């Protein structure tokens, strides 16, 4: 059970209020139709699956209904920071 700081509600909330949104900072290609099957497949299916620092989206489903990002250590489950969508993390790992 994680304790997650919602950058919009500006307080820590219990994990059960949130749902996980997958890896953050993946841009949708601007011209999907111009991509090869392989490049489109990379965007669709392939994720970094980092061991350690990972940037990921969370949705405050039962709270303010905002998506935001978290930097989480996938080994210790420690959440090192949360930040609003559209901003950049201050903590980055080797894979970032």
């Amino acid at each position, binding site marked *: 059970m994680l304790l997650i700081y919602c950058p919009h509600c500006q307080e820590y909330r219990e994990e059960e209020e949130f749902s996980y949104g997958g890896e953050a900072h993946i841009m949708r290609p601007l011209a999907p139709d111009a991509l090869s099957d392989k490049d489109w497949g990379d965007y669709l299916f392939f994720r970094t699956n980092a061991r350690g620092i990972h940037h990921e989206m969370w949705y405050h489903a039962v709270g303010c*209904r905002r998506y935001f990002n978290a930097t989480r250590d996938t080994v210790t489950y420690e959440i090192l920071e949360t930040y609003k969508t559209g901003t950049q993390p201050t903590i980055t790992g080797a894979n970032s």
Partner: protein
Amino acid sequence: MSQNRVASHTGAAIDFTFNGKAYQGIAGDTLASALLANGVDVVGRSFKYARPRGIFGHGAEEPNAIVQLGSGAGTVPNLKATQIELYQGLQASSVNGWPSVNFDLMGLIGAFGRLMPPGFYYKTFMYPKKLWMTYEHFIRKAAGLGATPVEADPDSYDKLNQHCDVLVAGAGPAGLVAAREAARTGARVIIADEQSQFGGSLLASKQQVDGIAAPLWVASLVAELMAYSNVQMLPRSTVFGYYDHNFLTILERRTDHLGAVSTCGTRQRLHRVRAAQVVLATGAFERPLVFAHNDIPGVMLASSVSTYVNRYGVAPGNKLVLFTTNDNAYQTALDWQGTGREVVAVIDSRRNPCGEIVAAVAAMGIEVIAGHGLIEAQGGKRVKRALVAPINEAGTQVTGAVRRLDCDLIACSGGWSPAVHLSSHTGAKPQWDENIVAFRPGNSKQQERSAGACRGTFDLQGCLSEGASAGADAALLSGYGDGSPQFPQIAVEEYIEEPQQALFLVPHTKPTSRAPSQFVDFQLDVSASGIELAVREGFESVEHIKRYTALGFGTDQGKLGNINGMAILANALDQTIAETGTTIFRPAYTPTTFGAIAGRDVNQLFDPERYTAVHRWHVEQGAKFEDVGQWKRPWYFPQQGETMQQAVDREGLAVRNSLGILDASTLGKIDIQGPDVAEFITRIYTNSYLKLAPGKCRYGVMLKEDGMIFDDGVCACLGDNHYLMFTTTGGAADVLAWLELWQQTEWPELQVYFTSVTDHWTTATVSGPNARRVMAKVCTDIDLSNEAFAFMDWRDGTVAGVKARVFRISFTGELSYEVNVPAHYGRHIWETLIAAGEEFNITPYGTETMHVLRAEKGFIIVGQDTDGSMTPADMNMDWVVGKNKAFSFIGKRSLQRSDTVRANRKQLVGLKTLNAKEVLPEGAQVVFDAEQKIPMAMQGHVTSSYFSASLGHSIALAVVKGGHDRLGQVVYCPLADGRSIAAEIVSSVFYDPKGERQHV
């Protein structure tokens, strides 16, 4: 007066029974202390060899006295007698020892104990496989895993979500002072202890603390804590799990001490605690010594003997031999001497014990036999004598003649093992410390610190100092106080102790493999020779040895035997204990009831039941309900004597021939406003909404980015910049999150706001040839003519006196109006329509009829006819895909992937059985050749299947490989009973293929 009760110890008498026999204890007893007071030696039989076993410990470490409490619905298996508070009328029985503890069948096996080496079950009960169920039944019954109640649990359990600044686990000396230091800073403090009374080891201590007797000092400290409004004290409460981000679980036993079934509210309460800081003060377990036949009743832990004497006034025997490797246990000799009973001798494995307390014991005239080991206990159902022999300095060999000491009680102590369980739950790896001959907690992974004995600090002065610092530190880090304790030092009276000896296996005159069993894990009969044998058979990892020998697998989870086992293993592997390591402790620390984990989420509160505003009407009409997500939707409305099929036939024919009414309120509804709505939803849906005018509706399908159908529904343009999106009942929340995802993270420049209005509207759908006539009776301000209000239009108006939105959309293929009003008016609008429709025999229909009617029309249901692997083309719905839209809508690119364009994808078709009355089972597999050998080549499956009363034959929808090119082909659905049903592939639209009826 029971035979073993110390005369000075009195209390109110309490009657109880054990294994059917009546006994008496006194107030304050545990079941264990009461049994010992009554001279009950044998309390169970061991798991494998069925050896008689007696009470060994006094707390959570107890391996032998495992009992079944109560009977009937309230019975609880596998409780430790040492943790059961005695109450009037308590009934308990041994879980081990079928059919009785004093003589049993398995006792015979005990005589052949050597036939049951480690891995016995793996090796013996392998073949033949079909007999395994028989073996298992026998093993379980004989092994005594307790009986689970077969009736529903009569008790009530609940959960409390707690938040605090400082959680203190354990209310022994370290925990109590930690709580006090944290409390005085104003921090919110929770202190929990598994015992009925706070004080831990001090409750059984004869020491002076701060100038007064230890139990009195505890009482004054507890009183002080109770006066703080910011302190929550939880006795009878075990902190049993430590999870991520300082989340801990505590099981509070609120009524277990009063009776088997609670008569006064919640039996157990699960506290789910989020703590800013944690102080672990969980104490330590005394380690037994591993010598031959150390499991005979009458062998106990030294501290347990002291606890029974000092706290419960019970002297469990007459003639004591104390066997120790350390100074600490000498206190037991003093305590025993205090009862007036005989201390035969103290056996000390060390050559020259010279601590202060050793001198004190010798001064009492008690014989101290140094440099010796107690190598074997003898006796049957009770210890009769101890064999004692000189051993070498390393403690590995017997070096001289064996001496026999007559006794009926052996107290042993191999030192203390910190209870590092909770810190282990956090992932902290216990560290071996040669100085204390024990594992200490590993480096903190969370906001916690250990204090006192669980940190490896065993002197009282040290425990109190550490507790005070830990409490002040935890408070400071949670934002309270200055971090310096108010009482850094508390005066105590205690002996200064000399170093102990590390002795994990006491040598015997015979080698381990031939000596009488030297037990390491009592509950599962793991012996030193068993561990050595496992090593000889090639096991090296501590985790593998654990699973092969079952070391630490019992309900005590190795609290007693683990360290000795690791050390014996290390020795057999010729490596250090630090190199060998320990197994990982995981939650739960002690067994926890399922009732507490379920809490109030049982029976009618198990899962929310969501109701529409018309729900009570459906109930009054005798509707049968179907669960759709959490919604209760009317399934069908049986009239007297009707079967489900008859009801569905009647309801369906009513819609086709006259008029039906459906409660469609559960459909998801999302209000969308903003200048970019049309652009936004055009990116989400496969088709375009850029030119949809106010007053118009359009059916849309949305895909996931992989091109697969995710949800569908109608979207209506309410006005400029204002749309209403309908979703499936089950997809409402997911679709809203999906819309928010794209707007917030990918296209924040698009100005759109989404609001769920699912609950706001009641939707009553009138459908059938007479729908316009009934609408005309209740609505006068909308021109209902087909010209003014066409199919796929919507209008604002007044229906039954209520402002309403009316949509001309149809899921039945008939003329339909969906009337939407705010839900406060839900029942009013419904009953008004029912009354107005009476002349047309208006017929309420449920989800089953709705399914049949839409299947007749070939309309898909997302999630039934699709399964997350279907594209619009697979569903024969290419018409809904806007291929020329400027923006590459979600999922579009995936529709061109090599896999989504291949020819033999499963495609939606209709199936018409050759025998018109035969209804295919949903989920049936489709094959092209029914005569082929098994396994057959499966070509698809049936997704929807019904009997259609309107058509007079069965209909089915199926997905079949390359199905769109196979119209007219006969396929087969092989059934489990060996039959195959033949069906012809037809168009998926069975009824009114031109769609004329909904346009009238």
